[in-house]
């Protein structure tokens, strides 16, 4: 059960991201909580889709928002804040994977999701989803991230291009190739 919002919180809700960032930069650290509340879900999902692990996602989530706070002074208002935050999250995921490669084989990192055996149809659907998710996780980063951002987070080509600092044409091409690779992994022929 959530408590009613205070007047101060309501004022914050009406503030733009740029206003909140200006508040943070002027020393009102608490304003950062509102920024985090706005983007916590998308940032967490980008991380979780990448790592496939709750524990790692929780750690990375904290690391990413601390990175975001420390870098607030470098935020360029030319980009949407969400795009900038996702870029930081994706970079943190790459760093995580790099570190993990040195210690644990990546195949063992994929956790099975919260699927619980239920009615048969639901079970089959979950199996199918898990198969697809595994296939996506098995793609190289350069193909995997565009697929996750486009199909799971609903970002546009332009936004993905901003996140990855690549031209839209490259993003389109990678997504096209990624789908072909997925199709082949899932034994789907496509033309």
């Amino acid at each position, binding site marked *: 059960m959530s408590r009613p919002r205070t007047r101060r919180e309501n004022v914050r809700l009406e503030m733009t991201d740029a206003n909140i960032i200006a508040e943070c930069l002027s020393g009102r650290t608490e304003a950062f909580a509102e920024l985090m509340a706005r983007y916590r879900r998308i940032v967490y*999902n980008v991380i979780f889709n990448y790592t496939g692990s*709750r524990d790692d996602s929780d750690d990375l*989530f904290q690391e990413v*928002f601390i990175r975001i*706070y420390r870098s607030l002074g470098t935020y360029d208002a030319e980009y949407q804040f969400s795009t900038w935050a996702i870029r930081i999250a994706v970079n943190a995921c790459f760093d995580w994977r790099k570190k993990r490669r040195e210690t644990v084989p990546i195949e063992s990192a994929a956790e099975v999701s919260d699927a619980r055996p239920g009615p048969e149809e639901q079970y089959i659907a979950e199996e199918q989803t898990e198969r697809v998710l595994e296939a996506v996780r098995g793609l190289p980063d350069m193909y995997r991230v565009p697929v996750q951002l486009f199909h799971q987070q609903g970002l546009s080509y332009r936004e993905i291009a901003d996140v990855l600092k690549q031209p839209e044409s490259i993003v389109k091409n990678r997504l096209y190739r990624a789908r072909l690779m997925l199709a082949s992994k899932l034994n789907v*022929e496509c033309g």
Partner: protein
Amino acid sequence: MMMRFFDRSLGEEQTASLRRHVGECARCRARFDRLLAALGSLEHVPGAEPPAGLDESVMRAVRALPVPAPELAGTAPVFAAAGILLALAFAFALQGNGPVELMLAAANTLNGVVAEAWKTQLAADFIGGLFPGIADAAGRMFWNVVLAGGVSSMLVGLRSAVAVLRKV
């Protein structure tokens, strides 16, 4: 066309045409349905909800950090423009009194400012690359050096201009 459908970039007419074809061609229908099932299931994976306690631990960490400083790099074009205006002002104000020397003095001033900025950016990138944890702090520190370097370069330029004036 099938891939453009999954890009969400097909118009109504093209989508209808694709669907018509898929309806008539068993081979394409099989491909389309299976790809739709795969990408569709990806799009319908329920989002994960971050645990509530995470926000508070982030805020605890954030409260212990210094307030982030606005990036000076964003203001570099302003400094560059100010430098150019200053240099041109020297040149115009003293026109007719050795313009070549004055332009050289102005060019030296600008060159000094640009060189300081470039060296600083290189140093900040280098330090940031070695110690990512202090990249932001290194960047801020070195940009402060730019300011000092830029001002000193302007003073050198001013001195050159005055020397030329005295000769004249």
